[in-house]
């Protein structure tokens, strides 16, 4: 029953907002001070939720939360007192100011990860505080700024409950939009980015833009929450938004849990109320927070949410893991790959006939690493509709060539054409539009996303604006998201893992993860797939099943494939044609059986002596 609720989109998007509405009821039961604290708590919930998106989903450590709060609080207050802007409009503007702040921070910031990103955010934090302190004519300097009480619809709100109502309404609206973003395509894409950056890039997710968007959105939301609080503070000063504030707000998502928006909601709510409850030991509260955070990290990294859901036996991932990946490991694919439903994307072209241009032509591709000529003048041609293998011993340059063809590391020189179009420098989105996708040697599924969501990302509509639009479409069960799901279900069924559509990809067996990759690769109805060691690390039976699968995709969907593989037996069995690489060059090409019989190929593999050079 809980599980059903969890999957219900409306419930997922509205429930976090419902928690702040609960604060209204709680507010009836407490005195003015309690209502005051509830107002602050409601804002903390919003800040926690926004930080969950940034810290939990996008995995960006931020020490600039205080600065974003300052932008919101000072921005809205100055608009009200200097320009006479109505309070509610000023709160809205605070969001815009915060968003701009987030943008200014993120554009240089997302070039870094880890400690350097933390330091860049700390720089931003420090610079904002210095500005607040020094720009005294405007900000009032270190002494701070008097904030007038909030007004709404011409009324000045002085009563604590009235203010609480106002804050709850605004916060609920903010939380709903945040939930829509985080539960929708945007949150999933962030998960994809942090789950597997390489895989995410391969399907057109622009990592930097997504992280910038995460910063902008969370900063805007934090600024709105702070703007709501500013009148409660009566005086705002730089100290109220210092680095310590940033650090302690960072504990909201960590203690609450970083896996869902609920982490921030619970973390923000509990950690904001806790100091009020623990006032008798106020001395120790900071130390207590630190210990709480470190203990959370060490002993229950999932935070409060995981503890709760474990208690409620709601943990879907845990349940799936307990069921065991082995059980269905050898489930075979569907008998035949059914034709795609009407949902197939417009770019799809009928499988290439005899007259179609070659699926892939590389001309004199070269790539050098330092002293090593990794790929040396390679020209290959893959006929449309064929299965073409690429083999060679370690260090032969297969992977480098493969990366050059699939656009991951641009070649130094040469030309790469697919179906007659030059894709040498084409971005991923353009490749997907032409009908070219790939798989990865080390499975690059997005472990925290469900199989269905993994496959939907394969559709390639992952530009940042597209992603936002899809998030909203998804939240209202729009036609577009229904189509996407239908397409993804088809792809999963085609590969034979439709039974696991809702399981997180990380809980699948390796073989199933490989199948999932295939489903993700074919969902956009490509004409050409690059496969990077599709059977590396999988067992013998698995390899057999994958072999059949590839062949069926090839025949039923008319997809051309270029397969790089170490397992020669596999290549020989599955491929129509084979190229052998050694020392960066192609040394043999032709039908598999002929190729592996050639002495130069044996020389390459066994060190058996060649007759004569």
């Amino acid at each position, binding site marked *: 029953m809980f599980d059903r609720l969890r999957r219900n989109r409306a419930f997922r998007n509205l429930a976090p907002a419902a928690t702040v509405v609960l604060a209204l009821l709680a507010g009836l039961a407490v005195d003015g001070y309690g209502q005051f604290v509830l107002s602050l708590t409601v804002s903390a919930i919003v800040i926690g939720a926004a930080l969950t998106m940034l810290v939990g989903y996008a995995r960006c450590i931020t020490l600039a939360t205080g600065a974003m709060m300052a932008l919101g609080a000072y921005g809205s207050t100055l608009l009200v007192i200097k320009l006479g802007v109505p309070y509610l409009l000023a709160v809205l503007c605070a969001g815009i100011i915060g968003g701009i702040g987030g943008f200014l921070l993120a554009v240089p910031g997302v070039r870094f990860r880890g400690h350097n990103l933390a330091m860049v955010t700390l720089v931003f934090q420090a610079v904002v505080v210095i500005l607040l302190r020094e720009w005294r004519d405007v900000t009032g300097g270190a002494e701070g700024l008097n904030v007038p009480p909030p007004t709404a619809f011409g009324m000045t709100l002085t009563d604590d409950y009235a203010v609480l109502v106002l804050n709850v309404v605004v916060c609920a609206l903010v939380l709903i939009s945040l939930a829509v973003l985080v539960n929708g395509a945007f949150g999933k894409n962030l998960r994809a980015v942090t789950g597997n950056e390489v895989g995410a890039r391969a399907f057109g997710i622009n990592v930097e833009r997504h992280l910038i968007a995460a910063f902008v959105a969370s900063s805007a939301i934090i600024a709105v929450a702070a703007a709501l609080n500013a009148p409660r503070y009566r005086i705002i000063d730089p100290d109220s938004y210092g680095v310590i504030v940033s650090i302690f707000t960072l504990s909201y998502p960590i203690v609450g849990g970083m896996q869902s928006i609920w982490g921030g909601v619970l973390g923000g709510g509990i950690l904001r109320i806790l100091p009020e409850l623990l006032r008798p030991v106020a001395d120790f509260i900071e*130390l207590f927070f*630190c210990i709480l955070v*470190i203990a959370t990290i060490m002993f229950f990294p999932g935070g409060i949410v995981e503890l709760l859901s474990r208690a409620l036996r709601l943990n879907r991932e845990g349940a799936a893991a307990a069921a065991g990946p082995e059980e269905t490991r050898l489930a075979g694919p569907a008998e035949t790959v059914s034709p795609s439903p009407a949902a197939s994307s417009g770019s799809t072209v009928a499988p290439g006939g005899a007259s179609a241009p070659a699926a892939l032509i590389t001309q004199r591709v070269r790539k050098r690493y330092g002293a090593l000529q990794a790929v040396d003048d390679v020209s290959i041609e893959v006929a449309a509709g064929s299965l073409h293998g690429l083999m060679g011993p370690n260090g032969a340059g297969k992977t480098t060539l493969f990366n050059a063809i699939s656009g991951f590391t641009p070649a130094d020189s040469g030309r790469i054409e697919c179906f007659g179009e030059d894709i040498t420098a084409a971005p991923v989105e353009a490749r997907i539009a032409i009908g070219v996708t790939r798989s990865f040697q080390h499975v690059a599924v997005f472990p925290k996303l469900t199989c269905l969501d993994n496959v939907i990302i394969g559709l390639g509509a992952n530009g940042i604006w597209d992603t936002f639009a899809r998030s909203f479409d998804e939240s209202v069960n729009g036609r577009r998201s229904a189509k996407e799901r239908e397409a993804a279900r088809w792809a999963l069924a085609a590969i034979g893992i439709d039974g696991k559509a809702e399981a997180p990809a990380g809980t699948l067996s390796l073989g199933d993860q490989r199948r999932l990759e295939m489903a993700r690769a074919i969902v956009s109805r490509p004409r050409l797939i690059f496969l990077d060691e599709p059977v590396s690390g999988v067992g013998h039976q698995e390899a057999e099943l994958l072999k059949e699968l590839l062949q069926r995709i090839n025949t039923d969907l008319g997809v051309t494939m270029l397969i790089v593989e170490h397992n020669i037996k596999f290549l020989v069995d599955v491929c129509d044609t084979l190229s052998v690489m050694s020392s960066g060059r192609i040394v043999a090409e032709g039908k598999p059986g002929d190729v592996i019989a050639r002495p130069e190929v044996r020389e390459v593999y066994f060190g058996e002596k060649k007759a004569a050079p």
Partner: protein
Amino acid sequence: MAEFLMVIIGGLKIGAIYALAAIGLIVIHKATKTVNFAHGGLVMLGAFAAYLIVVELNWPYWLAYVLIPILIGIVATLLEITILRPLRRADLFIVIVATIFLGIALSETFRLAQNTEMLAVPAAIKGPPMMLELGEDLIIITREQIWVCLGALTVGVIGLLIFRYAPAGRSMRAMAANVRGAQLCGYSVNRVYAIAWFVGGALAGLAGVFAAPSHGVSPELAISVITAAFVAAVIGGFDSLLGAIIGGLLLGLAETLSAAYVSSAMKSAVSFLLLFVVLLWRPEGLFPEAKGRDV
């Protein structure tokens, strides 16, 4: 001219302390791949220990220089063993967060133990300042300035030499270059990590002893030092001990010069400005360690 020289000396003194803190940060980072945001907390503990030894216990000052590195080294090692070792398999992100809160926890513990604005520690070397005549002007140099500049730099250089030539340093450098390779040379990960934290902690403790008279002992010391040490480390390339020394001195000079000739507000901004410029234009730092081809 005399003023300029005095400003330079003041900057070098601050820079020497930054350098010492930065070296410890780098040693730990190189050997264990952990960016220790709690390093400022260790420096603060060192300064506090100096207060205890010099003011509370009234022991001779030199004992502070001998005992504190050992003491803080042990504290750092214990942190490694109890908190960071269990997190070794966790991702970088989590470890960074853990050290951030560890640092705050150290300052908070101190604050709870000593609820006072700041503890003052007298200078190690007392005596009237030295006056040098330069034309009509007087250059005034205090003995403490000379002591801190030379003392901290000497310790820094000793640390650098240990890292470069001593067996313990070699084990850390091997671990830094290739963890698997180092293990195949018989270096135990646990032991080398503990040594690295000990050395890093000892350097932090000494930085605290040098900083105590001129900064006072307060929880704020932790944050100001970790920021400065981090900036110094980034300027130096975050990978090179020599770079950290030069980065620390440069930062000290930049701060003091901008305070003297621009404004005091600029002083707090300049370190961030430097950090930003270096990260964006030369992420490998101004003095990256010469790297061989990857093996």
